[in-house]
């Protein structure tokens, strides 16, 4: 029994692939150099039983003012690409973590001047809140925390003692 079922499933795959391509291109509204996929906010694209595209997103920090905005941006991108009835669903589990930021995303953050979060899993010092943060400008590790909060609550303000530049550090969660 090949035939229609196969074609249907292959076209469904094509739909999913295209929706994934569209959704993954959505930038973070606060740090537009990284996408919602880089940040691990976009979890998956699925097709509901009625064939409608469903994007699953997970909120980052509770109370982040960008959460609703991000959902709206993903929805609008999908609608503009022709997925008129697309839906966005919020997934809470497993909870978002900065460990979910992709390597590409971390590199983009660094070149944007934001020190990416430590990988908590392999840094014991991060566990005790005294992570060694490298300067995103010159790479030196002789840095100090100026304030627990930087340009947004999810970032801390640091200063590099080598190149003297201030910078934001994306905090671990």
């Amino acid at each position: 029994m090949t035939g229609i079922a196969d074609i249907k499933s292959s076209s469904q795959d094509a739909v999913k692939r295209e929706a994934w391509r569209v959704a993954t291109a959505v930038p973070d509204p606060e740090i537009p150099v990284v996408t919602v996929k880089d940040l691990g906010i976009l979890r998956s694209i699925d097709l509901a039983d009625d064939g409608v595209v469903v994007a699953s997103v997970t909120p980052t920090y509770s109370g982040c003012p960008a959460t609703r905005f991000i959902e709206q941006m993903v929805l609008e991108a999908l609608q503009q690409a022709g997925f008129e009835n697309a839906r966005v669903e919020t997934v809470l589990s497993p909870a978002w973590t900065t460990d979910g930021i992709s390597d590409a995303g971390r590199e983009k953050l660094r070149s944007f001047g934001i020190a990416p979060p430590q990988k908590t899993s392999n840094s014991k010092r991060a566990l005790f809140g005294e992570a060694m943060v490298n300067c995103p400008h010159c790479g030196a590790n002789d840095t100090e925390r100026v304030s627990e909060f930087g340009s947004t609550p999810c970032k801390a303000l640091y200063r590099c003692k080598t190149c003297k530049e201030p910078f934001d550090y994306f905090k671990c969660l």
Partner: protein
Amino acid sequence: MVPFWREMEKSSDKTLAAIAAKASKEVAYHLRHTSEWVIRLGDGTDESRERMVEALEDMVIYTGELFEKDAIALAAVDAGYAVDAAAFQDEWNHTVNTVLKEATLELPEVGHMQSGGRTGRHSEHLGHILSELQYMQRAYPGMSW
């Protein structure tokens, strides 16, 4: 309330458990952050210490409500959806006292705790807060931007 969220992760309600797992990580951060400030200000200058003593005297009466429960909370505990916050009072006291000790401060003894928020009985402050929060909507009904 780190222990509260830690235990809520075991809730039989999947959504509540997922929210708790997220909240656990965040409250641990808030506890660290606020502890640092309490220690810095309490064990700081004469001025900062005096203000912290005053702040503790003003605020401690609101901590009792953390461990109160109403009929809804009790029903949620019975159904296995929620945990009884009162069970964490000792752990909370221990955490708070450990930080205060390092900050050279003490939890003031108070005769009574403020109560009523959970049953909708609020103090005068709420009216002022609400009028501030609702100012735009009341001044410009149906506004949008």
